[in-house]
């Protein structure tokens, strides 16, 4: 079952908690910055996402939405 993760990019504070809890290690910080000046989290290989939602449960700012596709 594949998943799709979307980030509310401009609300992300780049804390990396989602990066650490992703069991597939597919989340990383973007090289570019958002409007806050942080490097926001982004998924590099979306096809490997299993929609486990670990990243979204961990995110302190509730910027992540997870869908099953």
């Amino acid at each position: 079952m594949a998943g799709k993760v979307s980030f509310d990019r401009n609300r992300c504070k780049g804390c990396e908690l989602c990066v650490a809890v992703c069991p597939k290690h597919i989340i990383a910080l973007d090289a570019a910055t958002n409007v806050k000046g942080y490097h926001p989290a982004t998924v590099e290989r979306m096809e490997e996402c299993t929609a486990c939602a670990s990243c979204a449960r961990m995110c302190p700012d509730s910027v992540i939405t997870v869908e099953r596709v």
Partner: protein
Amino acid sequence: MSIVYRKSKGLTDAEMHYCPGCTHGVAHKLVAEALEELGLVGSAVGVAPVGCSVFAYNYFACDMHEAAHGRAPAVATGIKRVHPDLAVFTYQGDGDLAAIGTAEIVHAAMRGEKITTVFINNAIYGMTGGQMAPTTLVGQKATTAPFGRQKDHYGSPIRMAELLSTIDGCVYAERVTVVDVPNILKAKKAIKKAFQLQMAGAGFTFVEVLSTCPTNWGLTPLEAIGWLKANMIPYFPLGVYADRSEAK
């Protein structure tokens, strides 16, 4: 396509002011998710503290009230007694609940007030700049304890879940943490159970959440999680300290 996880409807659209990686945000959404799942968002009243989470009234989508420093349980008592059918909760940090507000929380528990208290323990004063709190660990550095807390001088940190669990009016006391996904799920279960017991009229319910303060601990968010696991959990063990719900 189905949604697996989205932001709780128990939270407003306001952007949280918390520092990057601060787990206050995680605790906020667990309270919001518990209220949402129990259908209580429209009939809940929260009482915000003084401290980092003073702006909690901007973040929860239910009615909110602000209290003077440490007095949230007293304000919640008044609200609950006037509106016994509403879900009333306080959200307090350690500087608020375990220092200036110790009398209020102990007596609210003693009276068995039918409210829920979510207590955030991050072992430091966050908003005011990292001073030593009653929960600061022995040896832990703070701006007012630059060489670390000394037991001879300041005593040992206070364990609130254990303390309140000795009071008969406290029907439920559990300590949880939000530093990883399994613990987040356990924490949500505890908060939900506390609200369910409150609505069943069981008595005072208390959930202590071990939380990180990366900024004032001087660590990155990920280092802070490691520090909490290595230092706070051994001194503040997780678990259920009181469950008198079956006896009622």
